[in-house]
């Protein structure tokens, strides 16, 4: 598998001086499913936001061999789709179809292509016929799926998802996991939902205080009780031996 994301010596400080990422290096291959796990403030979301240049720290970030620069941001944002934790941050238009069309419109696609992408994206998340609904009238689970549809409409090769299952009821959570399983591309999760990580990702990277604590197979990492406790997490129930 070829390396599609390469991060070398990445550091990032917020305006208040807090260091969110410290000299972090990692590589992710095509079609890999990787989880970033760690306690609150570990740097998971900050790292995700670096993947399509929303945040730009010191160090090298390469996506499909292209260095992340102002001049190629549009190109990289076509490749990497970011799902924000709160779907209300992602759905800002008066109707669902306008929200889904927002990305493709920025890509300057033809009108017919955009309409077909809106339809296909809604079908992918199982919400056909929601085109004219207003986002504020949807349930939280529906909002999350529509937010995911806004990414599908961009046809990204990489999905970077920030807490995709947070605040979802079990049924909506299951639906979302099934949708993500069916996605044909690279998936990167930043989450506390370790059961979801077990189900979706073969590789896990544990972060603490902006540094990589451990990188390896999901099962090995999540079953390591000491590591889990050190990184403010706990072993998922399904891995606890009776």
């Amino acid at each position, binding site marked *: 598998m070829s390396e599609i994301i390469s991060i070398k010596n990445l550091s990032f400080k917020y305006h208040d001086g807090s260091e969110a990422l410290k000299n972090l290096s990692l590589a992710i291959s095509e079609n890999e499913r990787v989880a970033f796990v760690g306690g609150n403030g570990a740097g998971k979301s900050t790292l995700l936001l670096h993947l399509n240049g929303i945040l730009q720290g010191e160090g090298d970030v390469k996506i499909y061999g292209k260095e992340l620069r102002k001049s190629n941001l549009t190109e990289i944002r076509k490749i990497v789709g970011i799902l*924000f934790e709160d779907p*209300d941050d992602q759905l*800002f238009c008066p109707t669902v179809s306008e929200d889904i069309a*927002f990305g493709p419109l*920025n890509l300057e696609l033809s009108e017919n292509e*955009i309409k077909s992408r809106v339809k296909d994206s809604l079908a992918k998340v199982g919400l056909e016929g929601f085109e004219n609904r207003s986002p504020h009238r949807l349930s939280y689970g529906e909002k999350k799926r529509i937010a995911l549809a*806004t990414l599908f409409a961009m046809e990204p090769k990489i999905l970077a998802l920030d807490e995709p299952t947070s605040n979802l009821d079990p049924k909506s959570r299951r639906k979302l996991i099934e949708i993500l399983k069916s996605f044909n591309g690279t998936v990167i999760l930043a989450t506390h939902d370790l059961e979801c990580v077990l189900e979706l990702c073969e590789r896990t990277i544990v972060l603490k205080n902006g540094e990589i604590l451990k990188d390896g197979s999901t099962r090995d990492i999540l079953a390591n009780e000491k590591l889990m406790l050190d990184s403010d997490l706990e072993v998922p129930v399904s891995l606890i031996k009776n």
Partner: protein
Amino acid sequence: MHHDFFDKYKDVKSAWSEIKPLIRLLISIAFVISLSFVPMFNWIIIWYYCFILMFILFLSRLPELYFLKRTIIISIPAFLISLSASFLKPNQGEWLLFVFLKSYLSISIMVILISTTPFPSLISSLERIFVPRLIISLLGFVYRYSFLFIDEFESLERTYKSRTISKSFKLKKSAVSNISATLFRISLEKSEKVHQSMLSRGFTGSFRTLSHEKISAVQISVLTIFLILFIGVRFIV
């Protein structure tokens, strides 16, 4: 989210709702513009416009009590402005009544339009009559996020009430200012996040939209009939 304060009666089936939102918007604008050209103290034309408004109200099937409540509340500032200006006029009473009636009719047609038209359709109709895209986007954001902020306000208010036993006015005042400050902070954070999400989907600063469906000949005829009703009276009276 259980709020419905913009387009509460958008799902009511009526002759008015059969007219496309763009045509409804144009009718309403034409009503207001033609009304503003009615010469002072021409009571016959004003009553004629009252009749047209009642006809549109009848077509829209908007509940009368709701209509009255909304229009009266919204027209209070218009009344106060007319009242203060009327002191400078010789025939105060008549001038006040005439000007207030004109503004009340304008407010009324807009209340009918907004209450019966889905807000997103109204925004897209504004876009079609070449209202600048920035204003359209701002209206869209206001519509989308006003519900969210009302929810936030209610939730903050609940948490305040759940921890308050005292009925002191001073305490209430400080709670309201704290809630306002929190809402301000939330709105700043939200705007930053929304901007990030726009950027992540390729936004580069210019808003783009899809083209709209075409208007049928029947809809254009409806608009023409209303225009004749508004303009024709000037030639008769």
